[in-house]
């Protein structure tokens, strides 16, 4: 049940994002002042229009592309960077391990969203910088999980045996250890994905991150605040799209965790 709902929602969001240009004839950036603030159900505008007369359905659909793009990029960057650092720290131990753990302590002494927001305000706005900020705030989770896993996998007989046979350190690490910690990386990635997507929306909502007129769900919700009295749909639909995406990926992540790695529960 969990699995199917998660799978269906996630696949639906991916398909809708991919097929956005074929699902709507409207340009998400094209203003039409004559048709501004039309309610949902208006002919030609199933979800209505915003204050500039832009089609809301088109903006929500293109917003899905942006959200998924940012989520995927951030997850890949954090998984690679955090995963590699965790691998090295767990494998070498000694000072790399100590340095990494202190870094992790420091990062974990800031709430995630505050850290990402502050970094974003400093490095600047825009698509590239929001991915950078989320990654800088988020890599540490992988590093910790992977380091812990490597420490235990390293002790297993097949790794010890390979080392005794004279297998080189790099080969040992990437051929014998990495495949055994990969499931944890996948599980953490799936659990982090929706956190990144929601955090991006929150940061854009606060006026940083992705800027208007780019159709990002967060900045759409931010603009909708000025029209809450007259146009509820501007707040309802982008937020619902965000919540459904988060729901789908969360369910999928829960299911992956239960299947791949019951130890990681909670």
């Amino acid at each position, binding site marked *: 049940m969990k699995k199917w709902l998660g799978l269906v929602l996630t696949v639906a969001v991916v398909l809708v994002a991919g097929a956005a240009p074929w699902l709507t004839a409207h340009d998400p950036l094209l203003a039409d002042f004559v048709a501004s603030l039309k309610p949902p159900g208006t002919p030609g505008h199933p979800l209505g229009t915003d204050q500039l007369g832009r089609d809301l359905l088109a903006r929500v659909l293109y917003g899905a592309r942006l959200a998924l793009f940012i989520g995927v990029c951030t997850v890949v960057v954090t998984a690679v960077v955090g995963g590699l650092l965790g691998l090295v720290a767990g494998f070498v131990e000694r000072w790399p391990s100590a340095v990494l753990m202190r870094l992790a302590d420091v990062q974990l002494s800031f709430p995630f969203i505050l850290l990402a927001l502050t*970094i974003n305000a*400093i490095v600047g706005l825009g698509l590239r910088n929001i991915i950078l900020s989320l990654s800088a705030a988020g890599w540490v989770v992988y590093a910790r999980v992977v380091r812990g896993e490597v420490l235990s996998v390293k002790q297993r007989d097949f790794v010890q045996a390979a080392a005794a046979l004279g297998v080189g350190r790099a080969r040992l690490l990437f051929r014998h250890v990495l495949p055994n910690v990969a499931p944890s990386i996948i599980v953490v990635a799936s659990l982090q994905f929706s956190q990144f997507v*929601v955090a991006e*929306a929150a940061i854009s909502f*606060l*006026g940083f991150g992705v800027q208007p007129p780019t159709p990002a769900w967060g900045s759409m919700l931010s603009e909708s605040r000025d029209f809450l009295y007259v146009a509820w749909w501007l707040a309802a639909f982008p937020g619902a799209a965000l*919540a459904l995406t988060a729901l789908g990926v969360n369910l999928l992540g829960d299911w992956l965790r239960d299947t791949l790695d019951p130890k990681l529960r909670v």
Partner: protein
Amino acid sequence: MRRYIAARLAQAVLVVLLSLTAVFGMVRLGGDPVLLFLPMDIQAKDVNAIRQRLGFNDPLAVQYARFMGGALRGDFGESLRYRRDALGLVLERLPATLLLAATSIALTLIVAVPLGLLTAVRRDTLVDHVGTVAMVLGQATPGFWLGLMLIYLFAVHLRWLPTGGTGSLAHLVMPSVVLAAFFSARVARLTRSAVLDVLGEDYIKTARAKGLGEARVIGKHTLRNSAIPIVTLAGLEAGQLLGGAVVTETIFAWPGLGRLTVQALLNRDFPVVMAAVSLTSIVYTLMNLGVDLAYGWLDPRVRIRP
């Protein structure tokens, strides 16, 4: 226990020192800090004068020593916008945030723990299914969207509650519900899985086998033993409320630390940003320390691990 407390205290002090360093480093991340500190429309000839006045022409090591020295004495400089002590401004806003966080934690304990317990005890019944769906939905709903929808429903449509601001109990309702929603969903799930774990233990079977009433089995044996993971994880998660407050306070114009941080970031008032982020980090670290110590007290096995 004394050694455990000493070790954890030393670790917390180290983390605070390193976090202050990180705050300093973060602000230097963006290149020339003067450009960050200044309004966008500044005259070029004034830039160097200000750079000199704020001490950015000194070597980095000198600047770092000055920042750390000041920070440890509670001096983060003067707000560029309000011309007042930055830490003073931040401390003024702290009570509002703590009130909001405390209300949310109270709401969570009242709603989430009984819900988690109920769904675990009535496993695989309708109550469990409805409760689990509510938890999953609560976790997936972004707080700021929930906030907007509540404002639309209760402030715009029904006119029962104010849209934002502060002053009365009615002002506290929506922000604390929004802040509590995500947290409650997490805590309810944690409670459910912790109670389910305990219900599978042998001593519960023993308690039932010897004829104890169900109320005693659940109320005493189960709840007491599942309290340890619930307290720990809920405590660790409570720190994230400080992050959630950043967004929630902005939506509801709640005059707390989070809203001040966002405004200071928008105004490029970096002394205030540094003071606010440092204080958040210190409060967060203290919360984690408190949780660890409580954990050590609840479960003696933990104290052996350094």
